[in-house]
């Protein structure tokens, strides 16, 4: 069972460029999430989706967009990257509802120069 697959593993990106981080899950979970992890700040929620076709904003959504065309995929797009978006990005999925465990991918390390 693969669980959550994120791609790429790492990326160096020039400021101003567009970038899409990919996330695919094979657990048929309803809910999916994108977090960014920064030193000393823990994980902060960027966007989430409770079910295919719906998305919502998290704590730090500015500069990011998501789509949820189907159950399995939840791509995160940076339309015009800025250096402050240098971070490690984690995708997660769970069954819908606060009592359920979130399963995390291995992360994408993004550097914006």
């Amino acid at each position, binding site marked *: 069972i693969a669980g959550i697959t994120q791609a790429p593993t790492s990326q160096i990106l020039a400021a101003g460029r567009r970038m899409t981080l990919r996330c695919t899950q094979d657990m048929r979970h309803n809910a999916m999430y994108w977090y960014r992890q920064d030193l000393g700040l823990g994980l902060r929620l960027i966007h*989430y989706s409770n079910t295919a076709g719906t998305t919502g904003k998290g704590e730090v959504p500015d500069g990011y967009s998501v789509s949820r065309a189907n159950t399995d995929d939840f791509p995160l797009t940076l339309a015009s990257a800025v250096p402050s978006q240098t971070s490690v990005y984690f995708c*997660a999925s769970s069954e819908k509802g*606060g009592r359920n*465990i979130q399963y995390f991918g*291995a*992360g994408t390390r993004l550097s914006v120069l």
Partner: protein
Amino acid sequence: AQSVTQLDSQVPVFEEAPVELRCNYSSSVSVYLFWYVQYPNQGLQLLLKYLSGSTLVKGINGFEAEFNKSQTSFHLRKPSVHISDTAEYFCAVSDAGGSQGNLIFGKGTKLSVKP
């Protein structure tokens, strides 16, 4: 809205010693509580969770945590740590009454186990 405070950013400890990682939360509603562990260059994985019932919950790798509602705490403990427990530990909460599963994380505690 909820918030989570992990009181120690780093905890160094010798192998086979006991350890406690502290977590306090703030919420106006009932919450579910979680501890996740992140090994170097990996994603997070669940250690344990409290949903309801017994306030002492046991997780993987010999860890346990106790929910204390009056002190709004959910401290993580292990009686004897191993080198392999070196990792970053995150406490998290979610809204027990909501339909969404959004987690609010603390800033993490780095546990360093020394031989």
